[in-house]
């Protein structure tokens, strides 16, 4: 399939920061590569400077999901290019690199340096991490800075916590991004059973898992209508039915996250289930169900922004 010019063998990716292919290779060996779980791989978010991440405790189980406050630990741009990128380039699928800048200048540096590497198929702009200080610039400024720094495909990963996500998506589209990743986690809080103090070191964290699923569906539904951009939908997908619903709401591909923590091989199962669910509802191909939730107002065909 074609995801705004990126050739994928299927529709299942990972959400940024939910699967470390380098670490997983240490735990599972090269068997991981023989049946690699995803059709495209999205890196953990990198920043210009190395980050150690937030202090523990970093995660907590919540009703139908979990909250995390990891804080974007990464080796920094130079460490990523020197150490991680060569290993990620060995993966048998297209590579998307997620970046986050604390200023327009940082963002432009990240996008330019990553964008010049031919191993990288696309860049995802993380403008929505709930666990680090917010970027100083607006989505409009970030997307514009990134656009002028590379000719690579750009995805903007948005937060469902903004008042009007469709408006944010429209701004990103007008600034020249090629697609959207929807959604990032949404801020949540868990309190200790005895002390009633926040459990996580940063108090709040990002909520993920099944609890996020309807939120993700609503975001995809609103943004595809507002922009017509290709969307990688994510948020609590655990079965093929969930993936099909995202496609019906307007997603062109789906990404898995929290479900991977329970089963790193969940993507293969979900792919099979997706095909069966679609067929049971009369769709020869799951993507025939694209945006059917919109009925007659379906925003088809997809607008492929060059």
């Amino acid at each position: 399939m074609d995801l705004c010019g990126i050739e994928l063998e299927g529709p299942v990716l990972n959400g940024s920061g939910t699967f470390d292919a380098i670490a997983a290779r240490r735990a599972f060996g090269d068997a991981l590569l023989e049946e690699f779980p995803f059709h495209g791989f999205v890196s953990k978010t990198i920043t210009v400077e190395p980050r150690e991440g937030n202090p523990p405790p970093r995660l907590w189980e919540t009703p139908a999901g979990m909250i995390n406050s990891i804080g974007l630990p990464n080796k920094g741009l130079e460490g990523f290019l020197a150490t991680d990128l060569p290993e990620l380039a060995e993966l048998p699928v297209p590579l998307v690199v997620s970046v986050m800048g604390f200023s327009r200048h940082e963002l432009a540096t990240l996008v330019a340096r990553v964008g010049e590497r031919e191993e990288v198929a696309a860049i995802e702009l993380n403008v929505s991490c709930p666990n680090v200080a917010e970027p100083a610039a607006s989505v409009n400024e970030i997307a514009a800075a990134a656009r002028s720094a590379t000719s690579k495909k750009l995805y903007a990963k948005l937060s469902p916590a903004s008042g009007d996500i469709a408006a944010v998506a429209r701004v990103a589209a007008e600034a020249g991004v090629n697609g959207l990743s929807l959604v990032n986690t949404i801020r949540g809080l868990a309190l200790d059973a005895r002390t009633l103090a926040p459990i996580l070191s940063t108090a709040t964290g990002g909520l993920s898992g099944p609890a996020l699923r309807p939120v993700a569906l609503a975001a995809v539904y609103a943004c595809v209508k507002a922009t017509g951009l290709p969307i990688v939908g994510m948020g609590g997908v655990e079965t093929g039915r969930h993936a099909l619903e995202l496609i019906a709401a307007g997603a062109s591909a789906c990404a898995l996250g929290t479900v991977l923590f329970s089963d790193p091989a969940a993507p293969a199962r979900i792919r099979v289930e997706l095909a069966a669910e679609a067929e049971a509802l009369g769709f020869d191909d799951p993507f025939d169900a694209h945006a059917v939730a919109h009925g007659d107002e379906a925003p088809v065909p997809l607008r492929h922004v060059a």
Partner: protein
Amino acid sequence: VKAAQAEPRTLAPPGRRTAAVVANRSVGAYRLLSARDAGGPPDPRPGQFYMLAAAERWGGGEDERPYLPRAFSFARARRAGEGVELDFLLEAIGPGTERLGSLEPGEGLQLVGPLGVGFAAHEDRRAVLVGGGIGAAPILVLEDELRADGAEPTVLLGFRSAAHAQGATLFERAEVATDDGSVGRQALVTDLLAERLDADPDATVFACGPPPMLEAVRALCADRAVPAQLALESGMACGFGACFGCVVPTSDGYVRLCLEGPVLDADRLDTALFPGAGH
């Protein structure tokens, strides 16, 4: 005793599989859950762990939990056909352990593993094994392996009550301390350890237990320049480096316990009482 390995890690198959529960018996305050893992490697290393969940009724309990799988070091492993039969020692203290502890023969136990890096025994030093409470689990398989190799490890176990001290019956030979003196000596297991190291300062210590015990072991061994390997616990969603949740502060900065551990050399730690320890 096998020579110390650079990294005692048996690789896990890259996916979750369902093992068949074959037994679940009570050992005092604990449950000993046995499951036949037909698709898993037969040779997990002592100290390695598995991520466990019940195949049915995992979730939907109080507060809609449990949701995430739970990390458990295996207590014993026996070859069974092409696969392995695994024992896990459990204590029901929350929605996850309650469900796992209620599994009956014939039910499915979902697992990913073996994961992490286990203990690395040294050929030329006597082993002193220290287990506290549920932390006795990886000490059990380490004792088995050392004795099978002809070594004579000292095993020191601490429990909080007589019901918990029933866990000691799983071991071939162990000295027991309890908080209330109901079994063995009324002492902390680290009191036993201090006496043991007085008698044998050239030992290597292998320990697993609650964070305060591990911190006492770490401090005691650091004072005496005795090498120690500590099997730690930290809140973990995945077990294979994906979630970045289980970081432990070490002399090399934060490390993911699921990848670099759960067994760490004690001299990498300033303290075993780090935030989030024992979750």
